[in-house]
């Protein structure tokens, strides 16, 4: 039986991974003039991703037999890992790791707690970890876009920001329009996901629920629940980050520190 499993599912899975990885390499080579940095970044990210998901898969298989409370540690670990990834996108923003950690823990953490307490997410390890990981991963992406966009806006508008300061604006007021631009840009994917639900995109969780015997209508409604949960988590995390990031890019005397 083991041999059969290896020869069918595992080998097939590895072959499929190689085919999709090869497709990304072809696409990157095709577009190498537009984004030369991706030539190494994407293959390395893929290697890292495959090792992580296989390791997590193995851990998950062991955890799924354990009690529900163990998922708290798994989700907390995911939040720490996500904050570490966000920090790399938030170059030149001082103490970006703690900023991302607080924002992710507040955004994803509090929304997951509320959804679990209200019963929206069943208190089962089998649902908490997959749904929680989706919420954390999407919130992480939103955070990365938010901080990257905010940094870009500030660096591109140093003159305007210092002009506002010179006219007596507080640091919060001086960057308000750039916080708004970053906030809006970071939430575009989450909004578009909800908007295109069922038309452009039929996400995996719905297909999985139908395959495991849930009614298609319930599965469809639950997919909406997941996407709106992702939006709430992302928006809350960005809201928290928008308050914290100003303190990182200005001195306590409202002097702009992030200049290039």
């Amino acid at each position, binding site marked *: 039986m083991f041999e059969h499993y290896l020869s069918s599912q595992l080998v097939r899975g590895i072959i499929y991974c190689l085919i999709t990885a090869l497709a990304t390499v072809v696409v990157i080579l095709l577009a190498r003039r537009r984004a030369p940095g991706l030539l190494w970044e994407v293959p390395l990210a893929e290697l890292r991703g495959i090792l992580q998901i296989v390791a997590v898969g193995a851990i998950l298989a062991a955890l799924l037999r354990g009690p529900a409370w163990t998922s708290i540690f798994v989700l907390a670990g995911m939040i720490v890992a996500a904050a570490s990834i966000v920090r790399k996108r938030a170059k030149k923003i001082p103490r970006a790791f703690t900023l991302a950690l607080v924002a992710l823990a507040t955004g994803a953490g509090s929304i997951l707690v509320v959804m679990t307490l209200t019963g929206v997410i069943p208190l089962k390890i089998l649902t908490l970890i997959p749904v929680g990981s989706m919420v954390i991963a999407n919130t992480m992406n939103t955070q990365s876009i938010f901080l990257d966009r905010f940094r870009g806006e500030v660096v591109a508008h140093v003159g305007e920001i210092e002009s506002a*300061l010179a006219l*007596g604006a507080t640091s919060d007021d001086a960057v308000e329009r750039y916080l708004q631009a970053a906030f809006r840009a970071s939430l575009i994917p989450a909004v578009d996901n909800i908007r295109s639900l069922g038309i452009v995109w039929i996400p995996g969780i719905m297909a999985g629920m139908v395959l495991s015997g849930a009614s298609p209508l319930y599965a469809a409604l639950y997919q909406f629940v997941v996407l709106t949960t992702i939006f709430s988590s992302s928006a809350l995390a960005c809201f928290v980050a928008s308050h914290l990031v100003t303190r990182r890019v200005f001195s306590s005397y409202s002097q702009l520190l992030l200049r290039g």
Partner: protein
Amino acid sequence: MPDILVECRNLGRELSSSGQFLLRGVSFGLAQGEVLGIVGPSGAGKSMLLRLINRLDEPTEGTVFFHGGDYRELPPETLRRSIGMVMQRAYLFPGTIAENIAFGPGQRGESIRAAQIDALLAEVGLEGYASRDALTLSGGEAQRVAITRALANDPEVLLLDEPTSALDEASRGSVESLLERLIRERRLTCLWVTHSPEQARTMADRILVLAAGRTKALGLPDEVLSRRMEAADV
């Protein structure tokens, strides 16, 4: 003895990364209604001096006294509302010209009437511009709006950081004439950084010459500019 409005005492700024001093040991007083011209070659620390006085950067040595008190005791926002600054470029905000002009008073919760905005714009030769999009102006027009925006805050001191250096020849002349007229008519207290010794001689009551971040000379325009050594540095 006229009232000293701004006094720099041993003012300096050191770069923490390299230990290099952009400005060091600069001391002078600026009396009410006085125009102090600041001249010197590129990299002399002229802009840094204004940034330190406006507290856009923090001094690493010395301090500035404003109305006799250490300016570090004031909230930066309060200080900056009293010490206006016009930069080399206009850096207007998206929106109308009226919104740009109302920005400063709005920061302290005050509104500025449309008639006041029109009067300010008329003073700088931009009658009827209030509702125009700020980002569609020429360089000279934009700098006039930036000057008006600073004046709308009714500052006690105006810092001018080479406000015409980014303009073409024709706009430069008209904006300089405008500034000269505004300073005379409003009896503004000014620190005017300029590359032009002639402009400094015409407009300034005294001239401060900076070189490599240090005071090279400070005195009456004819005294300072007639000395050959300093003139060569300028």
